[in-house]
């Protein structure tokens, strides 16, 4: 061996090192992307300035960022909440659809003043998300069926269901439009520019969950049950009940995300309503290492990356190039997170 340098894995990463690794990863990804862009004849520095000025230099940019952030924050939170009890909710996508579906049903078919309809839609979205995760939850709690598969499969069912109603029975007959329902009249009020109240609510939900988990007896029991179910049983904690509650809450948050997307951003139910937010939520939660508060930041990072992708496309980059850069950033961030667990030591030979 030529080198006396060795890698050593530590059981937990120092927060400062973890942050540093993440920043370094993003920097490295941007550097690599820049080199590729430079070679292919684009001007990476100009593009970078363009992205930053377009995102932060205008109200438009920040609004777009926030509008992307809302569903990412909520689906990321949904996955992170499920992880507290050790459940992988891959079905945030389906619950998002279910929430959007239920909220739209209320919005389209229940008459009444907006002040009444909006809370109803909210409840419907929450319940829709919960119903969508109910079967995987019960299967996991009572039969030990892995929720990965069940929640994933239900995504397809939900997507097809929404596609069916939005092109079939609920399609916009007035305007002959077939791919979306009529516009849902009740709208979440805007709280800043185009950004609706989903943003502060999402942040509050994330903080709320974090507080409840850290500062309540219930949160203690959930953390213990999620970390080691047999220790929780030993401590007399009703693990099964907590699995059910937490998974339902996870589905609820994803359902609420769907409701806000309908009532706050899109206003019509259509096949592509989820925009893959459910799957992106998994990534958000993983980047946040399943911390509820961390989800706020990783969702912001994800929103920034996705938004930058759109800006880069208007700068003439192809979709595939943008996807590659986005993927590179996420990939290197994940590696950086892992590397933060290592330290380099020098040994004498």
């Amino acid at each position: 061996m030529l080198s006396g340098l060795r890698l050593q894995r530590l059981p937990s990463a120092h927060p400062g090192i973890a942050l540093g690794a993440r920043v370094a990863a993003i920097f490295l990804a941007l550097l690599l992307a820049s080199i590729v862009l430079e070679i292919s004849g684009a001007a990476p520095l100009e593009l970078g300035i363009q992205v930053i000025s377009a995102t932060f230099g205008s109200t438009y940019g920040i609004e777009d960022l926030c509008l992307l952030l809302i569903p990412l924050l909520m689906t990321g939170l949904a996955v992170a909440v499920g992880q507290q009890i050790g459940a992988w909710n891959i079905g945030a996508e389906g619950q998002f659809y279910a929430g959007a579906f239920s909220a739209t049903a209320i919005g389209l078919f229940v008459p009444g003043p907006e002040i009444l309809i909006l809370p109803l839609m909210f409840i419907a979205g929450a319940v829709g998300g919960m119903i969508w995760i109910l079967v995987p939850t019960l299967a996991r709690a009572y039969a030990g069926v892995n929720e990965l598969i069940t929640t994933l499969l239900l995504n397809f069912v939900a997507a097809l269901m929404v596609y069916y109603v939005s092109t079939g029975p609920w399609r916009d007959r007035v305007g002959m439009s077939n791919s979306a329902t009529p516009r849902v009249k009740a709208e979440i009020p805007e709280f800043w520019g185009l950004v609706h109240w989903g943003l502060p609510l999402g942040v509050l939900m994330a903080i709320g969950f974090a507080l409840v988990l850290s500062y309540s007896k219930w949160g203690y029991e959930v953390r213990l049950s999620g970390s080691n179910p047999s220790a929780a049983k030993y401590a007399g904690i009703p693990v099964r009940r907590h699995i059910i509650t937490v998974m339902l809450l996870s589905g609820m948050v994803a359902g609420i995300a769907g409701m806000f997307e309908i009532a706050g951003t899109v206003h019509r139910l259509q096949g592509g309503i989820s925009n893959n937010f459910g799957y992106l939520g998994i990534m958000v939660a993983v980047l946040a290492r399943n911390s509820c508060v961390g989800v706020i930041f990783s969702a912001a990072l994800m929103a920034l990356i996705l938004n930058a992708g759109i800006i880069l496309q208007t700068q003439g980059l192809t979709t595939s190039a943008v996807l590659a850069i986005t993927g590179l950033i996420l990939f290197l961030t994940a590696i950086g997170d892992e590397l933060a667990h290592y330290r380099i030591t020098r040994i004498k030979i």
Partner: protein
Amino acid sequence: MIDLRTLSRRGFLNMSAAGAAALALPAGLFRAGTASAATLPAVAEEDAVIGFGHVGPITDEGWTWSHHQGLLAVKEAFPKLKKVIEVENVPYSADATRTYRQFVSEGANMIFDTSSTGDFLHEVVKRAPEVAFMECDGHQVMDNLGWYYLAHWYPTYVIGVAAGHLSKTGKLGYVASFPVASVFCSTNAFLMGARSVNPAATLQTIAINSWFDPQAATQAGTALIDNGCDFLFGIMDEAGYLQVAEQRGVWAAMWNTDIRRYGPNSYVSSVIIDFKKFYVDQVGKRLAGTWSPSETLLQMGSGVDRDVWGAKVPADVAKAADAVRDKIVGGWSPFTGEIKDSTGTVRIAKDQKMTDTELYTWDWSVEGVSGLTS
């Protein structure tokens, strides 16, 4: 992952209630200059930024490729333009809003949405009054938003006439995407053309719930041929069922562009589209300060047409079909009553001529078309 975004491809699909109101215009007023909005000020060519948002990739050999040819024509006609922005694969989602908003931040003076993204575009339209927007297959007009589309039903009727001559069994097949207005219109026009030759002809449709799914289109084509169909038509973005037709020795007609090389013996024709002139004209008006929001249906011969007949199409069939084409160009409409729907009810009374609005928003099948439910 199921990607349902493709559902919105070409955006036949998205209309708003307000859009319907705009459609309640009398037929014949479809040509430019209907709206009363004030024009936007002129822009110097070297300061102008033009944006195009597409539903698919420009390499699709079909719909998006055709619009891209239009963009190239614009660049050629106005070589000094400051910038032409082009984004492919704009999804039918809030990402469309973000994309078009970004166009505006880039300083776009005029934006073409080549597949109506409806509300997602309108969000931007409302907040960018200084920018001219044109939505392909849109239905709504605002102070700075107009729309354009193709009267594809006329060439389709002409191809239908050829099918009536060519089909021996009188059983025609159609590979459809979704039960949307353009598909109703396309199937109806096709069968009506065929029935003008062979009144016993029928049209069987299979909807594959996609605009681009070669495998499903191939399967649908095979099933239709197995059911006795000897002429396939459809509204697909690829050559799947043309290749099946070639293998099985039946006729096929296509959409968008000339793709006869995938089935040289089977190829009859295509509903061929061309936006070059329209785009150059629109951009010219915007630069000159004479643009105003318009509703435009490109007519047969100026934007949409049948393709050059296939190599194996007998000359007399081509001649007969082209005679019908000439008649239509001369002002005759084949879509004149009496027309019955698939349940036998008379929907268009005798001698009543369907308006372009009715054709554009057709949502029922004529007698003889099976497989589509409204």
